[in-house]
């Protein structure tokens, strides 16, 4: 058969799962070959669709029994290949675990299953005057389980923080199949904090207790159009320097605006070389004051048009262009790479200028969409996959952008995660000692290396190995990392 999983594995899986929850048909399996990052593909050995934590624990125990790796997947929207399956392993898909188990406004928390979408939480509590603060652009699709794995951010994390700041407790299935509760009120090491953002390498979250945030008294969304990125960047510096922490500050350059315009007709001001979206929220008197400040700063820095959303519909219209920007570049380019890097915010102008130089040097267009408030860049590297060598050049530019980020003291990923895509960049940011120390955590949770192996870390040692001598590519890493093109 096409799969590389051991005989008997499927039979054992069927002892705890309905036959409709175990996928073995090769055509069906292939639809799971990649997540949102399509240039890494691997057809999973088996796909399971569990509905309870106990079923996940049972699957993980069967994997342990056979020494087979497993990978968890939510909606498959990740952009770093974090849910890339293993050809020799089991893909555990949480898309059927999408119950909101409880909403407790008095405790400002909700308990949900991992397959619940990020936005579904907000929708469930909106009428009660609350929302779930982290808002990745894919929030209507991406699952909370995936958010926990990736420590997802979003436009509003400038003021409100990331997934890790909003998860209060987790029920996890450990890599050896135990169900364990982690809570932020537990004494001892912050295992909850370490688990969030571990990209599925420390186990699978099966129940998530999230913090609900009170909807602010007022929200003001402002769109400012500038001639170019420089003025926009100066405005951002002046706003932050003025002691204002907006809920979000987002910037798009001319090319990104063009794409968004083509996709969703967002009708941003004509002729804008850059638009800045600033969102302020909080008590009315504070927002009023900040709004006056922000508009003054934008004007002083050359904004030629300012629009203020008068109602939720207009607010949504302003955000629509921004939130659809990634997929929208499909309208202006046959192929593209979404990059995710971080620089200290004050280094933005310099880094953007360098990206522009790279773009011209290699003849590769780069559209810039970014969370300007926290220096999180999302350069969209555009190329034509039909043109010989264009893909390689785009990869090169994309990689050089990450080099720029590291040189400026930033990070190779702000919110998309390392996954399979960026593990090779980890040594640029971290020393062997740093990576080995992180491996100690991995080995504590997953001594057999079965939970999403091959992600995050380049050529990790096995947990039993004595530090010091490195071997070649380990077979555990080598297999399953199918075609990379």
């Amino acid at each position, binding site marked *: 058969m096409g799969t590389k999983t051991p005989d008997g594995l499927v039979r054992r899986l069927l002892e705890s799962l309905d036959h409709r929850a175990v996928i073995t048909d090769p055509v069906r399996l292939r639809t799971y070959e990649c997540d949102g990052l399509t240039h890494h593909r691997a057809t999973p050995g088996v796909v399971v669709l569990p509905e309870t934590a106990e079923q996940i624990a049972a699957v993980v125990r069967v994997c342990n029994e056979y020494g087979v790796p497993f990978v968890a997947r939510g909606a498959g929207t990740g952009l770093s290949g974090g849910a890339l399956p293993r050809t020799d392993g089991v893909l555990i898909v949480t898309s059927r675990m999408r119950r909101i188990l409880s909403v*407790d406004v*008095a*405790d400002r*928390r909700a308990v949900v299953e991992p397959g619940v979408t990020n936005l579904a939480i907000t929708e469930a509590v909106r009428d009660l005057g609350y929302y779930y603060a982290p808002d990745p652009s894919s929030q209507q699709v991406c699952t909370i389980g995936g958010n926990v794995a*990736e*420590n997802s*951010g979003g436009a509003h*994390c400038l003021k409100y*923080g*990331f997934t890790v*700041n909003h998860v209060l407790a987790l029920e996890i299935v450990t890599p050896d199949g135990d169900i*364990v*509760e982690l809570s932020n*009120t*537990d*004494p*001892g*090491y*912050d*295992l909850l*904090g*370490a688990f969030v*953002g571990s990209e599925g390498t420390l186990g699978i979250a099966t129940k998530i207790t999230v913090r609900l945030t*009170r909807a*602010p008294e007022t929200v003001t969304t402002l769109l400012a159009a500038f001639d170019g990125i420089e003025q926009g960047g100066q405005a951002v*510096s002046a706003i*932050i*320097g003025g*002691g204002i*922490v907006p809920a979000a500050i987002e910037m798009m350059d001319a090319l990104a605006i063009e794409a968004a315009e083509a996709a969703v007709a967002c009708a941003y001001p004509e002729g804008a070389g850059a638009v800045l979206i600033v969102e302020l929220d909080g*008590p009315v*008197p*504070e927002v009023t*004051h*900040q709004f006056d400040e922000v508009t003054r700063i934008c004007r002083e820095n050359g904004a030629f048009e300012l629009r203020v959303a008068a109602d939720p519909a207009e607010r949504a219209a302003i955000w629509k262009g921004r939130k659809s920007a990634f997929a929208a570049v499909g309208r202006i380019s046959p192929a593209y790479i979404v990059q995710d890097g971080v*620089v*200290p*915010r004050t280094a933005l102008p310099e880094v953007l200028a360098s990206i522009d130089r790279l773009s011209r040097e290699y003849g590769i267009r780069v559209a810039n969409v970014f*969370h300007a408030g*926290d*220096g999180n860049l999302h350069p969209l590297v555009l190329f034509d996959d039909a043109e010989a060598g264009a893909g390689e050049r785009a990869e090169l530019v994309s990689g050089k952008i990450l080099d720029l980020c590291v040189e400026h*003291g*930033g*990070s*190779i*990923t*702000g919110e998309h995660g390392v996954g399979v895509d*960026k593990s090779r960049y980890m040594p640029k*940011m*971290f*020393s062997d*000692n740093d*990576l080995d*120390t*992180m491996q*100690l*955590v991995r080995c*504590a*949770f997953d001594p057999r290396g079965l939970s999403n192996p091959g992600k*995050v870390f380049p050529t990790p040692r096995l947990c039993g190995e004595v530090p010091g001598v490195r071997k070649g590519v380990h077979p555990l890493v080598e297999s399953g990392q199918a075609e990379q093109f």
Partner: protein
Amino acid sequence: MDAPHETGGAPLAGALHRTGVTIREAGPDDAVAGVSPRWVALPENTGEVAALMRVSAEHDLAVTPVGGGTRLHWGPPPERCDLLIDTCCLNQVLEHASGDLVVRVQAGLTMDSLAETLAAEGQELSLDVPLDGATVGGVLATAVAGPRRFRHGTARDLLIGVTVVLADGTTAKSGGKVVKNVAGYDLGKLFTGSYGTLGVITEAAFRLHPIPDDRRWIIAELPAPGTPGTGAVRGDGRPDAPERPGSPPGLDVLAAELAASQAEPSAIEVDWPDARGGPVVAVLVEGTAADARARAVRDLMAGHGTARITAGPPGWWGTLPGEDVLLEVRVPPSRAGGALRAIMARGLPAHVRGSLATAALQVTLPPDVGGSAFAEFVSRVRDDLGRLGGGLTVLTAPQELADRVDRWGPVGALPLLRRVKERFDPGRRMSPGRSVGGI
């Protein structure tokens, strides 16, 4: 420096000295929860800490890192302690990128001097620390937090990067100096609350906030127990509600209303020194228009007691209720009132203080409360809190009291905590036994 008194043999002391780090012999003031080390080292940078740890590894020395020493008596005593690594000389601000709202410091820097540096640029680390002289490293290792945890979270929420030295002398860092960063595991989280049992924190980077334009406190004294018609004081440990129409709503209701208030308070604290009196609730609002927002909060509190607005905090704000016996209580936010009542109804002279909104409360008892009374108190309150979905830990208590109780209560993740400890410190040389379950 002169050669130390070489009780451990010349080769050992020599090895320590050859690191080039200032070493002195330990004195009685250097005891860690009653256990005296043999030497105290005063390193000035991460490299020196690593050198010390390598020597310690070679000679099987048990090590305890210490900052300001303000909480050295917290937690159980270490199983053994040979070397105290005093971080007092690791006290530099490495980088304050004010435009990025980020600071990078050495771990021995005191929170006070950090605040001073940041204030010069109109910024602050929004972490209120209850003790004078506490260092950055100590605050992280003990995971203490103050009133504004309600708005800004605790140390783990503001920490964006750490450098640590492990038991074997390996220096490792994680995170960085940008706020947004998901590359690799977050070792900073792991070391937060580690009580020195995983390694030595030598450097840390934090995200900062601008110092708010203005601040106001709204303080309300709530009626004492037994006052007719108040729901605030039922001693049954259940969340209360107005008992009859027109009666003032209780503490739980007040807490919920304040937490949900559109005035966006930064902190909602309670202080209840004596079961015969009533609790005091104090709320902090910060930022533009603090005054207008304070009035809104005052109006909200008016039904519960006499509320007044002040420009400064009440004297007890952001401090611990006691020194010698200190317990920490955690319950879901809506159960804070129930937890308070359960504690005050136990008949011991308890004093409770802490964050009402996040339901993280500290309880103190007189040190002479007596072993059996203390043990019964801990066990009964733990039962009450268990029913409310919470728990209790003993932060500190005189040995004779602490010996009679389980300091931590049940922790579901203990096997995982143990496995982490085993990987980081297989020789059990880092503050062994100082944290949960003797890790």
